[in-house]
């Protein structure tokens, strides 16, 4: 279990966000501690992606605060938050499709290693960028596909590439939005093993539908239903929670 005495890396308190009459985020409190994987589960439309988007800076919340490493994120945009150390992957892969896998990762290495306002030196001759990006591709097992345009990569490979991009940012916390989506059983298993090792690098807030992966990986689980966190606890606590079984796992209770 997490040591409650340490400061949370990410702390969300009393977060509200509505779209018209729809309360997408309804008073959410959530913490992410160093070294843990905190899974966020919930049925479709529960507001998981909306919550991720508020953390990443795409949507401004109506009220409430998000603190990251002790700093209030209010008013900061996506790029600012990425610079602070939020490493995010998307539910639907978001890549520069014309660029090769390598050049996609190089972009992240470049962002991490100084200014993008350099106009003369060719990036392909910048050993630090190329080698740094190659190392990240090796970590996710894409090194043989480095020079293939992202548009020509398979679905699973694009998911891996997304993770390589997040890794290259050397983030202080990962926000992974359904990394297993559409991976197939074999791919999910490999990725589960890989993500398990990632928690030592930075804690992970993991949105995931694949329950095998969630139960294998998560230190804590929060269940989101209609924008509210209805339960937070360890894997065993959540498995045994009656409300969760009714609301989400879809089991009749006798």
């Amino acid at each position, binding site marked *: 279990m997490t040591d409650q005495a340490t400061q949370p890396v990410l702390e969300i308190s009393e977060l509200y966000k509505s779209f018209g009459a729809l309360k997408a985020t309804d008073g959410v409190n959530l913490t992410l501690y160093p070294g843990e994987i905190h899974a966020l589960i919930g049925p479709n439309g529960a507001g998981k992606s909306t919550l991720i988007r508020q953390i990443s800076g795409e949507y401004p919340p109506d009220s409430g605060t998000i603190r990251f490493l002790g700093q209030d994120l209010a008013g900061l945009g996506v*790029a600012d938050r990425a610079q602070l150390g939020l490493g995010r992957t*998307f539910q639907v892969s978001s890549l520069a499709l*014309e660029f090769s896998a390598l050049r996609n990762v190089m*972009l992240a290495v470049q962002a991490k290693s100084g200014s*993008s306002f350099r106009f003369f030196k*060719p990036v392909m001759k910048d050993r630090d960028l190329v080698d740094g990006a190659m190392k990240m591709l090796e970590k996710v097992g894409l090194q043989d596909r480095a020079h293939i345009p992202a548009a020509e990569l398979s679905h699973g490979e694009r998911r891996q590439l997304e993770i390589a*991009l997040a890794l290259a940012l050397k983030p202080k916390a990962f926000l992974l939005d359904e990394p297993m989506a559409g991976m197939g059983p074999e791919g999910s298993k490999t990725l589960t093993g890989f993500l398990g090792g990632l928690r030592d690098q930075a804690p992970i807030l993991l949105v995931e539908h694949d329950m095998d992966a969630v139960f294998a990986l998560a230190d804590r689980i929060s269940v989101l239903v209609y924008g509210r966190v209805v339960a937070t606890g360890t894997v065993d606590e959540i498995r045994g929670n009656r409300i969760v079984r009714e609301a989400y796992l879809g089991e009749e209770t006798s």
Partner: protein
Amino acid sequence: MVRLSKENGLNCVLALALLAAPFVATALDEPFYITLATRVAILAIAGVGLNLALGLGGLVSFGHAAFFGLGGYAAGILASHALNYEPILSSPFELNGTTQMLVIWFVALLVSGLAALLIGFFSLRTSGVYFIMITLAFAQMIYYFAISWPAYGGEDGLSIYVRNVLPGVNTMDPISFFMIAFVLLMLVILFSSMIKNSRFGAALQAARQNDERLATVGIHPFGIRLTTFVISAMITALSGALFADLNRFVSPDMLAWHMSGEIMVFVILGGVGRLFGPVVGAALFILIESVFGGISEYWMFYLGLVLLGVVLYARGGVIGFLAGKEKHD
């Protein structure tokens, strides 16, 4: 190490062909063609400027005539003050005009850069059709301002009696003036190619493909785009200053939306995002204009047919048609 790809080979041929054109024209005793070649070189510079924003950055600016015209007026206004011995400002300090091209170019770059900073700051908050319309609106504002401001000729424009001077070059000699334009064209193409391959270029092209991705790695797309818009405008203004000197005349036509459209046609005809695209585009445009323009006053119709063909069947423009699809590393 230069990879001599098909495109690089084609680019060399194009550069040499343009360079040879005025000399062939001299040999054939057709000095008018020297002027045409000079026009191609100068307008191609404007295209190279727009291509940076449109081709690499995906910023479809329909207002680049503003920068082209500002460059032209920088040349015209500075020269007219110098030739009439009237200071531009007499108080609080005296500011005189000049006929030195180097100074004129510097002023053209400065003025257009500032204008682009302002226009870009507002218009880059939008995208797509709105961006096209806002850039058009800004350019039209400047156009109507030029028309209604009588000090510099208003609607009639402004003549430059003698071509401006560059140390060590006889600018009144057609071939020398062509060489000035040609060398500047090669320099701006070299500069674009460096930008394209640089860190900045990587961020810029990523912003075009997926700005969400760019922001997620921690790079602000806005700053990258604004910088591009300014550089793009400055290159186009340089072209405008040369164009004024070529014709020894500046008029609000340089600022009109037709001009924005023309520059865009150079880029699309030649191949969006291709280094030498604007050179081919400008050359084709001028060829069609002078060949069909002599036959029929409806030459624009034929240009339209060619443009339609390119858009429908050769998306990469002429360069894409000849050298194939562009490859990224």
